[in-house]
């Protein structure tokens, strides 16, 4: 495949690593989630434009809508955690530990 796709794919992999391996703040995983969404958007737009796949031209927009919803959800969860504990440290999420 061409170098562009590899580049964008690598951006996605880096964001995925950032999502799965965060240290303490929940916000950093949400930011990486946004990074993943961004790279997916770029990849999809590139694929549609390069292949003249006109019928799928609206899929990036739909992806963006769903990304926005998901970001809102993630932020609301963050706000809930922050309301209870004051910070968003991930070690606070230990209620189910026995």
């Amino acid at each position, binding site marked *: 495949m061409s170098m562009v796709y590899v580049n964008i794919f690598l951006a996605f992999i880096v964001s995925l690593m950032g999502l799965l*391996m965060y240290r303490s703040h929940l916000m950093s995983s949400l930011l990486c989630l946004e990074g993943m969404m961004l790279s997916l958007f770029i990849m999809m737009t590139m694929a549609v434009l390069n292949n003249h796949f006109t019928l799928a031209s609206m899929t990036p927009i739909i992806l963006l809508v769903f990304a926005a919803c998901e970001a809102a959800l993630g932020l609301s969860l963050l706000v809930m955690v922050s309301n209870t504990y004051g910070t968003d440290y991930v070690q606070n999420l230990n209620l*189910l530990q026995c």
Partner: protein
Amino acid sequence: MNLLTSSMLTAMFILLLPIITSNTQLYKSNLYPHYVKTTISYAFTISMIPVMMFISSGQEMTISNWCWLSIQTLKLSLSFKLDYFSIIFIPVALFVTWSIMEFSMWYMHTDPYINQFFKYLLMFLITMMILVTANNLFQLFIGWEGVGIMSFLLIGWWYGRADANTAALQAILYNRIGDVGFIMAMAWFLTNLNAWNLQQIFITQHESLNMPLLGLLLAATGKSAQFGLHPWLPSAMEGPTPVSALLHSSTMVVAGVFLLIRFHPLMEQNKAMQTLTLCLGAITTLFTAICALTQNDIKKIVAFSTSSQLGLMIVTIGINQPYLAFLHICTHAFFKAMLFMCSGSIIHSLNDEQDIRKMGGLYKPMPFTTTSLIIGSLALTGMPFLTGFYSKDLIIETANTSYTNAWALLVTLIATSLTAAYSTRIMFFALLGQPRFNSLSPINENNPHLINSIKRLLIGSIFAGYLISHNIPPTTIPQMTMPCHLKLTALAMTIMGFILALELNLVAKNLKFKYPSNLFKFSNLLGYFPIVIHRLPSMMSLTMSQKSASMLLDMIWLENVLPKSISHFQMKMSTAVSNQKGLVKLYFLSFMITLTLSLLLLSFHE
């Protein structure tokens, strides 16, 4: 004929005069006790007239004055029944009260409220008269409650003392339980026979009279301190000695027995009730005689002696001899009141010492009291030809020769010998031996009030039995012929009791005191009855109500069953089935490792 009516009503009215004049200046002076005493002596003298008329011609009378109220078909009027029982009882009660009033002029001399004391005693006497002369149950109940109230006021005379207050409350509560039986009998008579006056009750035929007779028996148990409702009588010794002498030996406690005697035509036919009465009386007389053996307070021993004699009276009713029971009531009043007055004399002389272990050697310093105590005890145990003999010996003889319950008979005989035993104990500890009291006690019995009152009752204790039993109209015929050993049973048991008690006291005088045995503890603590019954039912009912109201309703139904149990259950279940531990970073890490591993494996696969 008119003389009986007018003299009896005059005697009753004379008793009311000191109460009526209690608002005047006379009540505040220090002549009031003397006034009350002479009032009672006049009332006694006037009430001897109906007795003479009754003895000579057997005239009885029912006075029905004033229609009080009519409730639909029930007509209540103020009616006095002057029959055999009331005509003979009234002079006896007035004589004993006269002596007690004179005694309390000496005993309560330093009390600042002595006028009120005399007023209370007089009010008690009036309500007792109402009880005795009542022809219908309503008037009897008025007298019944009246004696209960005056008993409460008089037992709690020294109300600063906590024990006196609890004793007065105890008396009221136990009497109240008996009153339930009385009210049940009244209700039964009202609904089934439509009458509260005795004549109609005795005439009307009814097939089963068990229910009202049970009620009356319960009332007698409460008022006359039979077993089961007996603890109030020894506790009532917290009151002053004149109160104990009047109420709790001669007059009030015989009200229950008097009630049963009044209803003897109903009890004659009912064999079941007679058996119940007999067994109740037998248990009472034995139990209280056992308890009297190891008490150390002289008034308590005499109180238990009263209780035992009351049980004997109930036994007499149980063998269908109401007239003998009544004779025992009259004779018992004399010597029991005298015993109380002698103990009052001893107590005051030893500076308010009531424990017989700290008396002794009063034989020489107090000769008159010693004499009357010994004669009273002998009369109590039924020494031949003193007062008690004429009633008590007849009772034992009749019980021996009647077709009765052998166990009750045996128990009564044992109680007779125990009577002699504890009487010996009183005499031995209080009078004989070396003195055990403080040496500076003001032993003095020189007061004429004391001497005259005890002297009157002394003469009564010796002669009254003979006089009464030889002058009354014939009633149920006593058993005249019986084998020699049965005739001598009572005397033999008494003599055996005396000898045993004297020997034991003399032998044990110089022995070392061992730890009390179980039997001693049973007897000394009144059979554990007050300890258990005063605490256990109240604690159980209070904890039951607390558990049902607070625990059951509040905490279980409203709190625990649905709300808390659901949340608790959910939490338990979720921790049980979930294996998530909230270790988010580890989960993400494992996700990533799986991804890379799978990528590596799949990409380098051929």
